């Protein structure tokens, strides 16, 4: 085994060319250390940078990949498999900086139909326009419609509604079950506080304790509504992207080499 490797390394160093079959073998068998060692042994040029980028993409070393993509490499964008796998990475993981670098440098003319469609999906979820449901997978329609409902909801308005009627803001933010729970818990605490104050007066220790207890929950409900609306938008969006990314990587896997 080591003898074969040494011969391949020596031959590549002597000839000065990249052995694509060997790289393909290393990549498909996930021989990470050998793959890295082989790429390091070669002289630096554009082709090698391209292979290094694919190596970084496969093993999620994203700092080097971001630097490489910032140079607008035509080699990389002409490779549909590399672009496809990069987009699927964005579907499954959130890395806004890398995603922006990739989209800014991207040459759309060289894209395949599938890649164009996937990028449209990725960008549409962020835009304020109505989603074009036919671009997405049919089994995600329910999730998409739900996301479309909540994506333009305003957290501040939700907080104000929660201040008027506890739970109303959560209902507005697309969390009806949480709204019911909040409303009833607040109602029970409120009634208890009201009865305590009515029976013992304001200056009683138990009344003060009840009022502070109710007050803390009331304010936390307002603040929680604000944070929950922001959180729900993120979770719903990620849910759609993860499902779609899983679907494509499971049913249409494309090898990097």
């Amino acid at each position, binding site marked *: 085994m080591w003898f074969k490797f040494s011969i391949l390394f020596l031959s590549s160093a002597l000839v000065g060319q990249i052995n694509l079959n060997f790289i393909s073998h290393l990549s498909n068998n996930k021989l990470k250390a050998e793959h890295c060692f082989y790429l390091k042994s070669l002289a630096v040029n554009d082709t090698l940078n391209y292979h290094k980028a694919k190596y970084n993409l496969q093993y999620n070393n994203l700092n080097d990949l971001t630097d490489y993509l910032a140079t607008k490499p035509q080699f990389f964008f002409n490779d549909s498999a590399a672009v496809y796998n990069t987009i699927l990475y964005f579907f*499954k*993981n*959130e*890395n806004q*900086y890398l995603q922006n670098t990739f989209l800014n440098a991207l040459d759309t003319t060289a894209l395949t139909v599938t890649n164009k469609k996937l990028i449209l999906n990725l960008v549409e979820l962020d835009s304020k326009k109505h989603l074009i449901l036919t671009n997405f997978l049919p089994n995600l329609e329910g*999730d998409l419609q739900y996301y479309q409902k909540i994506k333009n909801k305003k957290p501040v308005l939700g907080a104000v509604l929660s201040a008027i009627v506890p739970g109303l803001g959560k209902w507005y933010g*697309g*969390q*009806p*079950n*949480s709204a*019911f*729970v*909040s409303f009833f*818990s*607040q109602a029970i605490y409120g009634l208890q506080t009201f009865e305590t104050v009515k029976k013992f007066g304001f200056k009683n220790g138990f009344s003060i304790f009840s009022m502070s*207890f109710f007050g*803390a*929950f009331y*304010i*936390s*409900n307002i*603040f*929680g509504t604000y*944070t*929950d609306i922001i*959180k*729900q938008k*993120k*979770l*719903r969006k*990620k*849910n759609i992207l*993860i*499902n779609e990314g899983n679907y494509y990587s499971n049913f249409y896997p494309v090898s990097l080499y």
Partner: protein
Amino acid sequence: MHYVFLVLLLLNLKSNAQVSYVNDTVFANALFDANISINTKAIQQQKQPFSLSKHLLLFYQNFISEQIQANCLYKISCSENMKQSINYYGFLRGFLMGLNQLQNCAHSVKKDYPSNYIKNDKIINYIIN
């Protein structure tokens, strides 16, 4: 139970205000479970000052709340969530976020979460998503 939990927290407001450090395990779990990548460079660890309320929360978790852990609706229980929120966001915001989870403790709340965020019948509620 909630009263005990709150009283323990309210006992020491001052000591918590200075605490700002990040529990590494939270991020490790988040990365493993929810396919979520987090920019760890943006988060700087600091020395942890002594915090009485943190120790009181530990006492609550180990001696009072031990038996109800298995039935908890959330992946991170209310007290643990509050502890981590306070550590990360500071006392006021963390305390309010913890209370918000505490009053959302009902199994019907699961229906409000997307399918990828419910694993082993528990809601994944890492403080950073």
